[in-house]
């Protein structure tokens, strides 16, 4: 086992372990904080995959905004300070079965094609991934249209969220 594989194994363990805690813990604020750990692990995975910009964007957007939004929502939607009652619904075993079947199906598909065992090719020297990403997002023959649609979507979400959560005094 070389050092790269060890690092990947450790990061993967952190991601999956904290994800399991997120979906099984009773205390919801702890679940949101364990989600932060998962998101950090995913950012580390992006760094392993040489997508440094995406790793930092993950920290800024997911941890800096979305996780904080979750913590606020958890704190504002509780009657008591402690969580009570069961946190899994009655059919939870069916949910677990579906999850296991999904994973088995996906794993079978991954095993099925030898092309998935490829090793990464080296990144060409002097390749500016951030510049190329910026270029791809605004170049007319690349992805400027999905980019603009995504910004319209964010505007719609902003207006919608403010309107839905607004309280008239």
């Amino acid at each position, binding site marked *: 086992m070389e050092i790269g594989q060890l690092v990947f194994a450790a990061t993967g363990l952190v991601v999956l372990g904290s994800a399991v805690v997120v979906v099984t813990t009773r205390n919801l604020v702890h679940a949101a904080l364990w989600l932060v750990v*998962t998101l950090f692990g995913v950012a580390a995975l*992006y760094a392993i*995959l040489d997508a440094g910009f995406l790793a930092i964007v993950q920290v800024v957007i997911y941890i800096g905004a*979305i996780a904080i939004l979750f913590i606020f929502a958890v704190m504002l939607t509780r009657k008591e300070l402690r969580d009570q009652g069961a946190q899994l619904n009655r059919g*939870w075993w069916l949910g677990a079965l579906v999850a296991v079947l999904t994973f088995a199906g996906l794993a079978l598909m991954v095993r099925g094609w030898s092309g998935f065992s490829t090793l990464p090719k080296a990144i060409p020297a002097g390749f500016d991934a951030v510049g190329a990403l910026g270029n791809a997002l605004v170049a007319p023959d690349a992805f400027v249209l999905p980019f603009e649609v995504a910004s319209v979507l964010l505007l719609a979400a902003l207006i919608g969220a403010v309107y839905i959560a607004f309280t008239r005094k």
Partner: protein
Amino acid sequence: MIPLSWFLLLSAALFSIGLFGVLSRRNAVAILLGVELMLNAVNINLVSFWRYGTVTTMSGQVFAIIVFAVAAAEVAVGLALVLSVYRQRNTVIAEEIDMMKW
């Protein structure tokens, strides 16, 4: 060196864990936490395909950025809905929000 299948299996596992969270949790906010896990799994998939494919084609990373934006929008609106429901019905347990109007 890490073969591509390891990343794909990791993201499949994360997706399944998120799926379990969505299907089995009672609290609406916890369901949204599961959805976040699924979106992160999809992102890992996209970025690994970018890395293990042609690195100079940025489509994988562009897709991942769009998924970031979609996830942020969905969390914002979803949590606003949950807050609004909590104000009306005083509960966020998904099982108890089962009547349109009484």
